């Protein structure tokens, strides 16, 4: 179980057509399980890149990330995949539900390829009830509203009981009211399940409600302070 994530001198650059773009530079941060952290900053400041690195979706160009002292990214792809399954739940701005699967089937996707101790189907229904979609289990994504789709995505992110939830602008495609409800849902999960939440957003109001607020600009951290709730 990863209790602590430590980023040391983290950097990420992209090379395309001979031009090198530095998306991240010299990031030194520590995240603890149970913390609710918001990352805020303008477009292109490197928030999402940072999230994808912490979430093992991508490899850093420089520096390292340790999960309880272990460098996961140096391991095989299969080991990394297993780490993601055991530790991490992702929530994306575009929801990324599989269009051909129903809400329940979408929630069950992380479990398709793994053996677990609990009843998969029962667990899927349970998390959908938890996010308030007990009546939409057999609907296709195209039959759901944006807020409902994002709640399905959240249910999918928590179905395998991860220790960390990484949310990439989860409210970015939603209206203010729905966005706030999704935020509250994440907050609730953080309290009840004690999972660490790292939450990227454009919205300073939502960010201010977090335990900790990291502000980024041009690929670097410019401030790291407690949120209003602290």
């Amino acid at each position: 179980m990863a209790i602590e994530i430590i980023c040391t001198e983290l950097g990420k650059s992209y090379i395309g057509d001979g031009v090198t773009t530095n998306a991240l530079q010299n990031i030194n941060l520590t995240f603890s399980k149970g913390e609710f952290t918001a990352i805020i900053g303008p477009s292109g400041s490197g928030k999402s890149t940072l999230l994808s690195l912490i979430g093992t979706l991508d490899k850093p160009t420089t520096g390292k990330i340790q999960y309880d002292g272990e460098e996961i990214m140096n391991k095989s792809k299969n080991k990394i995949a297993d780490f993601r399954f055991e530790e991490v739940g992702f929530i994306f701005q575009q929801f990324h539900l599989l269009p051909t699967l129903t809400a329940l089937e979408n929630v069950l996707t992380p479990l398709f390829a793994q053996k677990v101790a609990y009843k998969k189907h029962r667990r899927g229904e349970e998390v959908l009830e938890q996010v308030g979609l007990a009546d939409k289990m057999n609907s296709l994504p195209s039959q759901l509203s944006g807020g409902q789709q994002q709640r399905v995505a959240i249910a999918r992110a928590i179905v395998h009981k991860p220790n960390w939830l990484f949310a990439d602008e989860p409210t970015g495609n939603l209206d203010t009211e729905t966005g706030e409800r999704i935020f509250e849902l994440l907050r609730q999960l953080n309290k009840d399940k004690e999972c660490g939440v790292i939450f990227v957003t454009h919205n300073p109001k939502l960010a201010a409600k977090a335990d900790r607020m990291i502000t980024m600009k041009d690929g670097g951290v410019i401030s790291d302070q407690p949120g209003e709730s602290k």
Partner: protein
Amino acid sequence: MIRFIWRNWWRNKERFILLVVGALVISSGLTYLIGLSETNKGTIVDELQQRWSASYDIVVRPQGSRTITEEVNLLEPNYLSGLSGGISIEQYEKIKAMSDIEVAAPIAMIGYADYPVKLTEFELEKEGIYRVHQEVINGNGIKELSSSSNNYYAFGDWDILQENLSIEVRSNNYLGHKLDYLFVMRSMLLAGIDPEQEAKLVGLDKSIIIGDEPISAIRIKVAGVSDLTEESQQLLEQVAQNIENETGLLTDITLGSSPQPTLTHVPAVTNQEELGWFQQPWVKIGSSMTIFKEAKIGLLGLIVSVIAVAIVYVWASGLVSLLARRKEFALLLAVGWRPNQLSRLLFLESSILGVFVAIISWMMLGFVYVSGEATLSPIRFLLTGLFGFMVYLLGAVIPALLVRTISPYETMRTGEISNTSKRLLKTRGLSSMAFNHFIGKWKRSLLSIIAISLPTSLLGLFLYITIRLKGVMYTTWLGQYVALEVGPVHYAAMIVTLLIAILTTAEIMWQNIAERQQEIALLKAVGWKNRNVRFLILTEGMFSGLFAAIIGLTLTFGMMWGLYRQFPTEELLFILSTGIVPILIGLVGTIIPAERAVRISPNQGMGGNFSNRKAVERRMKWVLITALLLLAGGFIYTVIQVVA
């Protein structure tokens, strides 16, 4: 996992139908080509050997004995009897002593000899003078020629007849002694042979030889030549060359000749009226070898290319599916799937389709077999299904490797991302825009180009072979036999490959459209008309066809050079015109995707065409079952018709 795969297919109905159609085309094609067509390489060779074997391989003749028809490799049926000597005993002995010669049987024409044929015995009772009226009717196959004559005979006491009727000539009438038999005179050609050699060759062993240069021809049997293969042909050519070099005589290789019905015109000569045209079975030298070679190339090439095109289709289909689901796979990786689980997923999908194809093929073969319309070897039966399965399994290899290159990070990316920004042309209008799209997706365009260009190149090659064979294939008996046997298989294979090519293009264009829904919606929003969109998409399809035409024809000319070491200057225009076919295929394959693009409304998002509505599912099931039954029924009916 199988349920996951099934849902993905079932709820993506349009693509699923395409997938099933592709599987049906491949299974029908393989069933016909591998399972049912008896005309494979082996049977052609057997047929040729059984039906057209000559007792000798090479004929040696004296210089100057060639006739004008031999310029087109055509020999009179009785060409040997027209020669009177020209080869000396010394030359004969030289040939006989050469290596590789198993039998050298000489033949010497001696000349015509008359002989009587006894008809009926005269039985006369009374003495007196008798008249015998004789009418001879000769049928030469065209008309009957008759001649009549009267002969007078005396019958009675020998001494009286001897004294009074010592042969007196009055006009045309003779009066002579009575004959015992009624007879006609016939003439025949006498030929001298070497009994020992002749016995070896055909088993005839009583004859004599006369003169200084008495031999007209020597028939050679070469040791080690027992079947119709290219090795035999090479050996014969070598032996024939040796004979020519050492004796200065003419040689002709008769192995693999075929009878060829030949029309001859007999004009009016002096007081004889014109006989008109008549047909005789002449001998076409070297025809079997030519036919055998071409038929072998044709058939083998066809089956290989059908399988190749099928694999390319499965690749394309797998690749399209991979592209369409790239985000989905990235997401599955992000939620903890292992990369090898994705590969397994793709292999499983392909295997399911492969099993489906194998079962359909076996069902079709089984039905044809049960209805008693064809005999079937167990090995062929097994092979047909296995080939289908292998095609799908092989087709999954590249997508399964590619899926491992997907990074889970791709779930985070949004908007247009391209690592390169190269454009060959500036976008100035519809055509250049279509061209840039086409080049921008060159990897997948390449797949449809390969799928189209393979059958195209074959088409060109077959047309060329047909032209080359025009003289042999349709005039000799053997050629007619082969053409009749091979023709339907050629056409079936060509149609199957072309259908698969259309499907490949349709799949790829379908995916291109799916990826550009928003773009097309935007184009419509800024005022594009339906016909502009249609034109844009069809132009892209046409570019695929055009490139396929160029590649296909290059391949054709390459193969021609490889096979014949010659460039078809005479037929160039004709072969170039086959380039229209791939362009048409490119267009036809794009029609449905283009119409789909036209239907995109300006305000359409990425909602997609996915549906799990009960009514739609029920209708879909019915449509699918009906289509399956119709296709299978139609196919079996066709096969029964063809086989019968």
